C-alpha cells in the first residue's frame, strides 16, 4: 500500500517537476540569451522579470486557439499532443536519484530511443495536416532530420551499453562510480550531444521551423495552446536530453556526498540545459544539406568506429 | 533584302529602310527625337548619331545620323563605338541646356521620351550653370496644355499638326535660340487631331489638359485595351483608371486601324464615364423596401409579354443577350427605322457588292479618292486623317522617281510641296476635306445621285453631255480610271440609302473596269454594323405593338429614346408600356419613366465586342470594377435569366452567340480566352510600379479588401501577373525596360511602324469576293417631297455624339445650334437679313439661328444632327421656311 503511494507520489512529482522545469525554461532561456547578448532580458514582470513565465502562460492560455479552415482538423489537433506524450513517457525511465524512478525497466535505454523516435510523428503530422507549403517543407525536413540523427544517437549510446552490458538506466549510472563515461566514451558523448540537439530540433539545428525560410515551418498554422504544446514539448525535449546526457555520460546523481544525489542530478542537468541555450545564443543555422551530409558522412562512420573500438577493447579486456 | 553590319554582326533587313528603323526593328536601343515611325526622318535632332565605316578595314569611321542612312547592302555602322556614344550624350546635354527642372510637376514625367533618351544616352549630370531661356505659354483650348519652356526643338509637333493632319493654326515662329512652337496667338487649336500633339511631343510641351484635372502618373493607372465608342471607326484605345474614375484615353497602336493616332473626340470625349449623373444603383420607381433586383428578376421570371429595345451603342453580346431574353420576334432596334435600314444597307453592300472595303490604314495606300456625300472629318475623323495621307500618294511618286527614299520626309515634302493627288468631293455643302480636293461639287441629294449616275456612266465609257455636272463627272471618272487604286468614300451622313447605293455603284464600276477599287462607308455609331448583323425589328413596329398590346413590358437597353426619337415620341411610347426596365449608364430624360433601372457599364466598365465600319470585330475590356452596382448589360440580362448569384462568364456567352450567328465564328480568336495564361500567369492591368495599394482604401478601412478577380478575360485587375510584353490581342499598356514613353510601341512591333508581334488585333468579318454582284436598285420608298427645302443633317465632331457631348472638355467646343442656309436662298425666300428662321417638322414649328453657308445649294438647309435642340428629328425631310 505504502509502496503504491510512493510510486504515485513519484509519478506525480516527476510529471509536475518536468513540466514546471519546462515552463520555467521559457524564462531561463530568454534571460540567458539576454545575458550572453549583453542585454537585460525580461525585467518588467516581477523582480528580475521572474513572473514572465506566468505572464507568458496566461497569455498563451487566453490566446485564440484558431484552427484554419483548410487544415485536416483531427490530425491537426492530435499532432502537438504526440510530442508531449512521447517525451513525458520517456521521463518514466529516468532515474533522478536512487529509487526516484517511475519504471526502472531493464531495457530503459531502448525505451528512451523508441519514444524519441515517436517525436518525428508530431512534426510530420503537423506539417502535413496544416495544408500549407511551408509547413509541409518543415515537416519533411523534420522527418528526414530526426530519422537520420536517431541512427547516430542510437549508435553513439551503444558504446556505453557495451561497457555496462545493460540497457538499464540505474545500472548505467552505477557503472560510472569509478569513472564517468564521458572519458572513455568521449566520441560517443559528442555524437550524442549533437544528435540530441538535432533530435529536439533546437538551434542551431532548427531547420524544420527555420523562420527565415519557412515562416515557422511545421507549426506555422498553430496558435494558442496547441502552439504552446509544441513550445513546451521542445523544452521538455531539452530537459530530457540533458537528463540523458547526465545519466549516460556524467554519472547521473553520483557526486560528493555533501549534497543529496537528486541535487547533483539537477545541477548537472541544468548545466546542460544552459549549454543548449548557449548553443542557441552563439551558433548559426547550417544549411539543410550541410546538416544531412554532416550526419551521414561524419557522425555515422564516427559512431560505427566508436562502437567497433569499444567492442574490441571490451572484448580484449574480457 | 539587304545585308547590313551593325557592331560587326551581319543582319538581313528589308529594303527601303533607314538605319535607325533597322536598329529599332532589331530591338536595339538607339536614342532619337525627331524621327517618328508615321512621319519618318528629317534628320533634325542629331540624336540618332552612329559611327559609319567604309568597310571592315576602316577603323576610324565617321559620325552619321542613322535616320538619314539608307540601309543598303554592306552598310556598316556601330552603336557601341565610344565616339558615337559620346556624341549622343553630348548632343542630349546640349538639348537639355534650357530644359527646366520641371519633371515633378510635368505631366509627361514617367512616360517621357526625353527622360528615357537622357538615361539611355548616359548623360546624367548637368554641367551647364548659366541662365535658362524661358518662353511664355499659350492657352491652347480645353484639350491641350502648353508649356513651351520644356521644348527641345525636335519639330515633331509642326510636322504632325501641319503636314500630317493638315492643321492651319499652328506653326513655328522666330529663329535661333528663340524658336517657338504654338499659334500666332493664344486660342483653341482648331484641328480635330490636336490631341495627338500630346503623344507626338517627346517631352512635356503639350500635355493632356483633361488628365491634368485629375492627374495620375502612367505607372499608377489601371489600364485595359479598349475600343473607342465615339464613332464607327473603332479606333483602338487604352483606357486608364485610378481611384474609380476614368483618367485618360491614349491611342493603342493597331497597324490595321488607327496606328499611332486618335481624334479629339475619341481622346477627350471620355469624361461622361465620370459624370455625376451616372446611374449607379439598381433602382425601382415606386420604392418599397424589397430588393429591387429581385423584383426585376421576378418580373422577368413571370414570363410576361416582353419586348427588348437594342442599341448600336451596346456590344454584340449585350444585344444578343437581350434578343435571347425577349425572343427573336420581340427584339427591336432602338434607332429610327430609316437609320436601321441605312446600317443594314451598308452592311449588306459591303458583303455583296464585291468591292474591298479597306481597313483604316489601308485607306492611306489608295491614290485617288472620291468622297460622296459624307463629311468624314466630322462623322469619322480618323478616315479623314487617312484620306489626307492618301491624297499625298500620287505626288510622292514623283519624289520616288527622283530616287528619294520613302522615309526621307523632308526631301519628299520639298518635292511634293502643297500638291495633292486626285481627290474629289461631292457633298451637300463644302467640307474641311475640300481644301485638299482637286475639284469639289455641292448639291442636294438628287444632284449627287444624278452625278453618281453620270460618273458610273463615264466610267463605263459612255460620254455624257456638256453641262457642269457632266464635266465634273467626266473628270472624276478619268482621274479614278487613270490611277492604280481608286477609293470611294461615303456613308450614312446624308441619311440617304440612295447615296450608299450610288457609292457602291461607282466602286463596282471601277472594279469592273479592272481597278483595285475600294469602298469605305462611315456608319453612325460604334456598333451600328453589329446591330445590323444581330438584326431586329424596326422601331415603328414596336410603337404599334405597345399601342395594341397594353400589357407589354419593355426592356430598353443603352438607348436614350428621347435622344433618338424626340421627347414626345419617347414619352408616349414609354407610357404605353405596362412597365419599363431600363439598362443604361447615364441619367437622361427617359429614365424618370423607368419602373426599374439596372445600371449599365460604359465602355470602361464592361467587356464586349463591337463591329466597326469595315466589318472588323474588335474586343474591348472592362478597365476597372466599379465600386457600385454598375456592370455590363449582358451580365445584367444573364443574371435576370439564370438562377445563379453572378452572371455566366463572358466566353460562355460569346460561344452561345457564335452558335446562333455562324458569321461570328471567327470572333472566337478575337482575344485569348479567360483561361489562357502566359506560363501560369494572367496579364495585369496595372504596371509593376503601381503604387498606393495599401493606402488607397485605408481611409475607408485599414483592412485591405480582396482584389477583384476577372473571370471574363485573360487580364487581372491587379499588378500581379506577367510583366513581359503582352500578346497583341490584350495589351493593357505599352512598356519596355528603358522605354517608359509610348515610343515603347517600337518593341511591340515586328518592325517599327508595322504590325504588332502576334498580329494586329481585330478580325474582319467581311471580305469582298471576286464576284461583283448585289442589287443596287433602291427598293425603299422615297420620301415625299412636301416642301421646297430639303433639310439635311450636318455633323459635328464635338456634339454629334450623344455620350461624348456630355464630357465637360468637349462640351465647350460644341458649336451653337444653327441652321445653315445660303444667302441666295434667304434672298429668294424673301427673309433676307433675318437672324433666325422657323421650319416645320412633323407639324411643329422649330426656330433656329441662321448661319450663312454659301456653299450650300439653294434648296438645302442643314441642321446639326444629335444636338440638344435637334434630337429626335428624322433626317432628311422637306420643309418651308419662314422668319422667326
Amino acid at each position, binding site marked *: 500500500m505504502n509502496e503504491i503511494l510512493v510510486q504515485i507520489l513519484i509519478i506525480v512529482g516527476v510529471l509536475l517537476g518536468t513540466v514546471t522545469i519546462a515552463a520555467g525554461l521559457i524564462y531561463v532561456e530568454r534571460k540567458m540569451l539576454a545575458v*550572453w547578448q549583453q542585454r537585460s532580458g525580461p525585467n518588467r514582470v516581477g523582480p528580475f522579470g521572474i513572473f514572465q513565465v506566468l505572464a507568458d502562460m496566461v497569455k498563451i492560455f487566453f490566446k485564440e486557439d484558431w484552427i484554419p479552415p483548410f487544415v485536416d482538423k483531427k490530425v491537426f489537433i492530435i499532432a502537438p499532443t504526440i510530442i508531449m506524450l512521447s517525451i513525458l513517457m520517456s521521463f518514466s525511465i529516468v532515474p533522478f536519484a536512487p529509487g526516484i524512478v517511475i519504471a526502472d525497466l531493464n531495457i530503459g535505454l531502448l525505451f528512451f530511443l523508441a519514444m524519441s523516435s515517436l517525436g518525428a510523428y508530431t512534426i510530420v503530422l503537423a506539417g502535413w495536416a496544416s495544408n500549407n507549403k511551408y509547413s509541409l517543407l518543415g515537416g519533411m525536413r523534420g522527418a528526414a532530420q530526426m530519422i537520420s540523427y536517431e541512427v547516430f544517437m542510437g549508435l553513439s549510446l551503444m558504446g556505453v551499453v557495451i561497457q555496462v552490458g545493460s540497457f538499464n538506466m540505474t545500472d548505467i549510472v552505477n557503472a560510472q562510480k569509478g569513472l564517468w563515461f564521458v572519458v572513455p566514451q568521449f566520441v560517443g558523448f559528442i555524437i550524442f550531444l549533437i544528435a540530441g540537439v538535432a533530435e529536439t530540433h533546437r538551434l542551431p539545428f532548427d531547420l524544420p521551423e527555420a523562420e527565415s525560410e519557412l515562416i515557422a515551418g511545421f507549426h506555422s498554422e498553430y496558435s494558442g495552446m496547441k502552439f504552446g504544446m509544441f513550445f513546451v514539448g521542445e523544452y521538455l525535449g531539452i530537459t530530457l536530453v540533458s537528463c540523458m546526457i547526465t545519466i549516460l555520460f556524467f554519472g547521473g546523481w553520483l557526486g560528493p556526498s555533501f549534497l543529496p544525489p537528486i541535487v547533483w542530478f539537477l545541477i548537472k542537468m541544468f548545466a546542460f540545459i544552459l549549454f543548449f541555450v548557449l548553443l542557441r545564443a552563439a551558433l548559426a543555422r547550417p544549411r539543410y544539406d550541410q546538416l544531412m551530409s554532416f550526419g551521414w558522412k561524419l557522425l555515422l562512420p564516427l559512431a560505427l568506429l566508436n562502437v567497433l573500438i569499444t567492442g574490441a577493447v571490451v572484448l580484449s579486456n574480457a | 533584302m539587304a545585308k547590313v553590319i551593325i557592331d560587326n554582326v551581319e543582319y538581313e533587313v528589308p529594303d527601303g529602310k533607314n538605319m535607325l528603323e533597322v536598329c529599332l526593328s532589331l530591338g536595339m536601343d538607339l536614342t532619337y527625337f525627331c524621327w517618328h515611325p508615321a512621319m519618318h526622318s528629317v534628320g533634325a535632332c542629331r540624336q540618332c548619331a552612329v559611327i559609319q565605316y567604309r568597310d571592315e578595314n576602316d577603323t576610324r569611321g565617321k559620325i552619321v545620323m542613322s535616320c538619314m542612312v539608307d540601309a543598303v547592302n554592306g552598310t556598316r555602322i556601330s552603336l557601341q563605338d565610344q565616339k558615337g556614344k559620346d556624341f549622343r550624350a553630348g548632343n542630349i546635354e546640349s538639348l537639355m541646356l534650357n530644359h*527646366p527642372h520641371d519633371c515633378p510637376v510635368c505631366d509627361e514625367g514617367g512616360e517621357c521620351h526625353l527622360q528615357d533618351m537622357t538615361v539611355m544616352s548616359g548623360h546624367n549630370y548637368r554641367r551647364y550653370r548659366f541662365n535658362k531661356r524661358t518662353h511664355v505659354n499659350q492657352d491652347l483650348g480645353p484639350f491641350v496644355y502648353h508649356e513651351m519652356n520644356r521644348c527641345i526643338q525636335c519639330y515633331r509637333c509642326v510636322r504632325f499638326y501641319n503636314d500630317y493632319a493638315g492643321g492651319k493654326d499652328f506653326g513655328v515662329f522666330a529663329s535661333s535660340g528663340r524658336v517657338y512652337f504654338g499659334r500666332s496667338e493664344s486660342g483653341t487649336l482648331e484641328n480635330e487631331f490636336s490631341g495627338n500633339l500630346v503623344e507626338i511631343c517627346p517631352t512635356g510641351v503639350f500635355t493632356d489638359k483633361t488628365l491634368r484635372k485629375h492627374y495620375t502618373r502612367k505607372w499608377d493607372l489601371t489600364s485595359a485595351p479598349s475600343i473607342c465608342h465615339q464613332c464607327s471607326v473603332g479606333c483602338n484605345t487604352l483606357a486608364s483608371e485610378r481611384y474609380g474614375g476614368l483618367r485618360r484615353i491614349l491611342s493603342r497602336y493597331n497597324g490595321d486601324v488607327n496606328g499611332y493616332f486618335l481624334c479629339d473626340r475619341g481622346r477627350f470625349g471620355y469624361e461622361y464615364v465620370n459624370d455625376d449623373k451616372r446611374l449607379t444603383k439598381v433602382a425601382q420607381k415606386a420604392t418599397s423596401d424589397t430588393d429591387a433586383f429581385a423584383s426585376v428578376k421576378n418580373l422577368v421570371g413571370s414570363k410576361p409579354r416582353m419586348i427588348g429595345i437594342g442599341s448600336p451603342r451596346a456590344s454584340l453580346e449585350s444585344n444578343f443577350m437581350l434578343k435571347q431574353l425577349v425572343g427573336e420576334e420581340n427584339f427591336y432596334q432602338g434607332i429610327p427605322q430609316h437609320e436601321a435600314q441605312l446600317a443594314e444597307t451598308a452592311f449588306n453592300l459591303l458583303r455583296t457588292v464585291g468591292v474591298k472595303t479597306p481597313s483604316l490604314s489601308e485607306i492611306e495606300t489608295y491614290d485617288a479618292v472620291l468622297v460622296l456625300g459624307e463629311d468624314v472629318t466630322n462623322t469619322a475623323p480618323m478616315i479623314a486623317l487617312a484620306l489626307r495621307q492618301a491624297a499625298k500618294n500620287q505626288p510622292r511618286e514623283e519624289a520616288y522617281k527622283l530616287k528619294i527614299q520613302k522615309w526621307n520626309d523632308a526631301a519628299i515634302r520639298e518635292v511634293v510641296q502643297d500638291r495633292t493627288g486626285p481627290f474629289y468631293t461631292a457633298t451637300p455643302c463644302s467640307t474641311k476635306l475640300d481644301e485638299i480636293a482637286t475639284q469639289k461639287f455641292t448639291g442636294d441629294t438628287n444632284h449627287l445621285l444624278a452625278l453618281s449616275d453620270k460618273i458610273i456612266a463615264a466610267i463605263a465609257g459612255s460620254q455624257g453631255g456638256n453641262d457642269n455636272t457632266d464635266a465634273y463627272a467626266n473628270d472624276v471618272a478619268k482621274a479614278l480610271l487613270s490611277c492604280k487604286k481608286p477609293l470611294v468614300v461615303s456613308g450614312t451622313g446624308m441619311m440617304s440609302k440612295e447615296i450608299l447605293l450610288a457609292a457602291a455603284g461607282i466602286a463596282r464600276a471601277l472594279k469592273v473596269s479592272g481597278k483595285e477599287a475600294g469602298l469605305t462607308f462611315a456608319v453612325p455609331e460604334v456598333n451600328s454594323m453589329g446591330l445590323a448583323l444581330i438584326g431586329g425589328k424596326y422601331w415603328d413596329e414596336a410603337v404599334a405593338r405597345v399601342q395594341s398590346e397594353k400589357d407589354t413590358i419593355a426592356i430598353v437597353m443603352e438607348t436614350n429614346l428621347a435622344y433618338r426619337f424626340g421627347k414626345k415620341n419617347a414619352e408616349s411610347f414609354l407610357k404605353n408600356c405596362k412597365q419599363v426596365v431600363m439598362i443604361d449608364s447615364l441619367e437622361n430624360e427617359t429614365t424618370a419613366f423607368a419602373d426599374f433601372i439596372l445600371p449599365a457599364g460604359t465602355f470602361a466598365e464592361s467587356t464586349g465586342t463591337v463591329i466597326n465600319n469595315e466589318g472588323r470585330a474588335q474586343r474591348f475590356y472592362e478597365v476597372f470594377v466599379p465600386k457600385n452596382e454598375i456592370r455590363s448589360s449582358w451580365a445584367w440580362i444573364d443574371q435576370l435569366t439564370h438562377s445563379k448569384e453572378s452572371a455566366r462568364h463572358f466566353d460562355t456567352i460569346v460561344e452561345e452567340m457564335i452558335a446562333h450567328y455562324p458569321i461570328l465564328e471567327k470572333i472566337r480568336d478575337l482575344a485569348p480566352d479567360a483561361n489562357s495564361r502566359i506560363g501560369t500567369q494572367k496579364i495585369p492591368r496595372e504596371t509593376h510600379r503601381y*503604387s*498606393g495599394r495599401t493606402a488607397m482604401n*485605408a481611409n475607408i478601412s485599414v483592412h485591405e479588401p480582396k482584389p477583384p478577380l476577372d473571370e471574363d478575360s485573360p487580364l487581372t485587375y491587379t499588378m500581379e501577373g506577367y510583366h513581359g510584353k503582352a500578346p497583341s490581342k490584350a495589351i493593357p499598356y505599352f512598356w519596355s525596360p528603358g522605354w517608359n514613353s509610348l515610343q515603347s510601341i517600337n518593341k511591340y512591333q515586328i518592325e517599327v511602324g508595322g504590325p504588332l508581334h502576334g498580329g494586329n488585333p481585330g478580325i474582319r468579318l467581311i471580305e469582298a469576293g471576286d464576284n461583283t454582284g448585289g442589287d443596287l436598285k433602291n427598293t425603299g420608298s422615297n420620301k415625299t417631297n412636301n416642301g421646297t427645302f430639303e433639310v439635311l443633317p450636318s455633323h459635328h465632331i464635338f456634339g454629334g455624339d450623344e455620350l461624348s457631348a456630355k464630357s465637360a472638355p468637349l462640351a465647350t467646343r460644341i458649336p451653337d445650334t444653327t441652321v445653315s442656309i445660303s444667302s441666295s436662298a434667304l434672298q429668294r425666300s424673301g427673309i433676307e437679313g433675318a437672324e433666325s428662321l422657323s421650319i416645320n417638322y412633323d407639324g411643329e414649328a422649330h426656330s433656329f439661328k441662321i448661319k450663312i453657308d454659301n456653299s450650300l445649294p439653294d434648296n438645302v438647309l442643314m441642321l446639326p444632327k444629335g444636338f440638344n435642340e435637334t434630337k429626335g428629328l428624322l433626317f432628311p425631310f422637306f420643309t418651308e421656311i419662314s422668319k422667326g
Partner: protein
Amino acid sequence: MLSNVRTLWMVFLKMFKKKVTIQYPEKKAYLPPRWRGRIILSRDPDHNERCVACYLCAAACPVDCISLQATEDENGRRYPEFFRINFSRCIFCGLCEDACPTYAIQLTPDFEMGEYNRQNLVYEKEDLLIDGMGKYHGYSFYQQAGVAVGVKPKGGGEKEDPPVDVRTLLP
C-alpha cells in the same frame, strides 16, 4: 568545427560584460536628426505646401503605403488633394524621402506612434503637414522649376532669363 567552439566560448564570455540596454521608457535614447521615424510633410519658405504631388514617394514606397491625388489651385500650382500614409504598413525605410524632389516628405526622430486601433494609424494630410521646413531650410522648388504657376512671373525663377520675345528680329 573549431571555430564553432571558439564562438561558443566568446559568447559565453559576454556574460561578464556590461549590458548595453537602455531602459526605455524610463531613459530615452538619443535619436539623430536623420533618424527614420514618423513621416511629415513640410512647407516651403513662403509657408506653402512643399509637396507638388509628383507621386514619386508613392512609386518609391516598397510597401505601397503612400497614396495621394494631385490637384491644382487657380494658378496651376500643384498640390495634393489628399495625401495618405498607412503607417500600419510603413516600414520606415526612408525611400520616400530619398525620392522626394522638393524636400516635402521627411522622416523625423519620433517613433512613439503606437495605437490600440489600427485605423488610427492611417494618417491624412492634416496629420502629416507641419508648419515648418523640417530638416531642409530655405529650399523652394518652384523657384527652381520652369513653370510659373503664380509663384513667380515666367522667367522669374533662379537662373532664368526673362521670356523670349518671339517677334524680335535681332540675331
